[in-house]
């Protein structure tokens, strides 16, 4: 019982931390990480739901399958979000564009 509770509470706290970070931080990378922390929290609770102490019955395989599925989704979505964030940073970050321009200028003058 205590194991399940421990995992569940940890998961819940992770979820809450992720949620808080997601809302208050504006940097894309932090947001993506926050979502990842949140999903980890949910998976923890899910795995905890499947746990049975030894001798008290079989371990439920369905949440395990769900977590596996969830992890896959989370990985792919994270990858996509990271790429998107990179694109956003490249195209709409003025500082970066400015720096690029400055980097490009000396090259042009060399040619």
């Amino acid at each position, binding site marked *: 019982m205590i194991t399940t509770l421990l995992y*569940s509470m940890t998961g819940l706290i992770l979820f809450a931390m992720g949620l808080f970070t997601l809302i208050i931080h504006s940097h894309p990378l932090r947001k993506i990480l926050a979502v990842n922390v949140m999903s980890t929290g949910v998976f923890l609770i899910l795995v905890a739901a499947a746990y049975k102490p030894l001798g008290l*019955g079989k371990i439920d395989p369905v949440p395990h399958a769900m977590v596996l599925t969830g992890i896959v989704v989370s*990985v792919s*979505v994270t990858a996509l979000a990271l790429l998107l964030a990179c694109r956003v940073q490249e195209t*709409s*970050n*003025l500082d970066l564009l400015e720096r690029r321009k400055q980097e490009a200028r000396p090259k042009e003058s060399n040619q």
Partner: protein
Amino acid sequence: MRTEEKIITRSRNRHKRLDAFQRILLLLVICLTTLLGSIIWTMPENPPGLADAVALMQEHSGVKSPVTAVLLNFRGYDTLLEVMVLLLAVIGAWSLAKAHFPQQEREANPVQMGVVRLLVPLMFLVAAYLVWQGSHLAGGAFQGGAILGAAGVLMLVTELPCLRAIPAHPLRIGLVLGPLIFVGVALFCLFLTGDLLGYPEETAGWLILLIEAGCAISIGLTLASLFAGGHPEDERPKNQEQAKGPCKGERP
């Protein structure tokens, strides 16, 4: 535009202390957590589940591992859609950008090359073992695919020159292979038994293995492609036929 840029750049000069909105939010989040926590606390000790139901049907599933049985047989439809999610991520990534390789081709670092030569075949072996083992122990397509993906990432990090030349079309075939096998098997079962993914009991194990093998390859390629961060060089439909043969690094 302006404000959006600000939002992105603001994080750099963010204040350390929380402002009023953040405090209220913090309070709300804490309340929410406490509430949900107390609900979990009061939940019954032995939650109902599907463990017994799955155990009852286990012997008809064709595999010994309950997780694999759930993943690929009982809830195989979920997994089919899941594989599509992975593929979607690749399509989305490819639509966004071109894979980023360094400007100049340079000779790979001999140490890195050595590590790759040593590790990559080993990883392929482990992946194959994991897929094989999935039928009776923990393991399966996702785990195997993850190892394959890691192998791909390793090669990408080493900046093997030949990776740059990987043609798009074979890569796409590889990416689609797993889903196609999955759908093919599903439809095959539909013809045979009248149910989508309704494996005939005697061949279920082999069909699941086939799906797992196909999916493991595709998942590995998917993860590596996602790491590469975009579509390959010759993805322009016009000059499709410039593809070169498979490079050495891919199949050492």
